[in-house]
């Protein structure tokens, strides 16, 4: 299960939705983990990224853990963008 790409996100967070849009545009599969609105209760996020902010993308394909939507968008476009074979497995349901 943990070989899935995981996006830690918060409902209606515009930064998260921006990342979702870019992932979808590039056909990149991911599993969503929704976290608490309350910042102080996001220890699951802190354990993976060192901070409690979302979005966070954990990508086992590259071993990358990314924070900040700007960084994530840049990463997705670079790694899964044009000219690259995204080669995503169709995991998930």
């Amino acid at each position: 299960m943990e070989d899935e790409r995981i996006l830690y996100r918060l409902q209606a967070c515009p930064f998260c939705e921006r990342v979702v849009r870019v992932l979808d545009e590039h056909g990149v599969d991911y599993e969503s983990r929704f976290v608490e609105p309350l910042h102080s209760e996001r220890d699951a996020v802190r354990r993976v990224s060192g901070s409690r902010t979302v979005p966070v993308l954990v990508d086992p394909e590259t071993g990358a853990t990314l924070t900040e939507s700007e960084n994530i968008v840049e990463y997705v476009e670079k790694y899964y963008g044009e000219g690259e074979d995204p080669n995503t497995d169709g995991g998930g349901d």
Partner: protein
Amino acid sequence: MELGFEVTQLPPHDAPEEGEEAPGFTRPLVNDEYWEDAALSDTVPALVVFYPMNGSFPATYIWQEVEERGWDDDGTVVGVTASTPYSHRRFLDERDTDARLFADPSNGVAREWGVAHELDGMTGVEEPRPAVFYVDEGMTVRYAWVADEHPEFPPYDEIDGVVG
């Protein structure tokens, strides 16, 4: 419980019986930190506890009993009710449990399992009636109990024998 009058009967249910295949479903599964879509087939074997929505006294009583009996100690108890993921997070916060809860605000899972209950006096609100199933790793129902009265609580001692 002797009340000296007749307890309200629930209409017949259409729940899966022992030996039958459990209806599969995917819903957000809430733990004490986050929630994500999960299939029942990925969480079995498990004791599947359908219960009235968070905040009702049967919900509190049922989960107190689950905790006291330690059914949830190894994380193989999952609850299902018509509450939101946010409500489930608060419910878990208030309790000392390793159980995880499926959020099913539409009550579609309870309907699929034949244990839906329309609440009298709360128009448009339905929830599961209390029902407990043990589902094995092959998605076969090995134990089934469904409430026939309103209210009725699971036969905890009998279920001790199933999870023990």
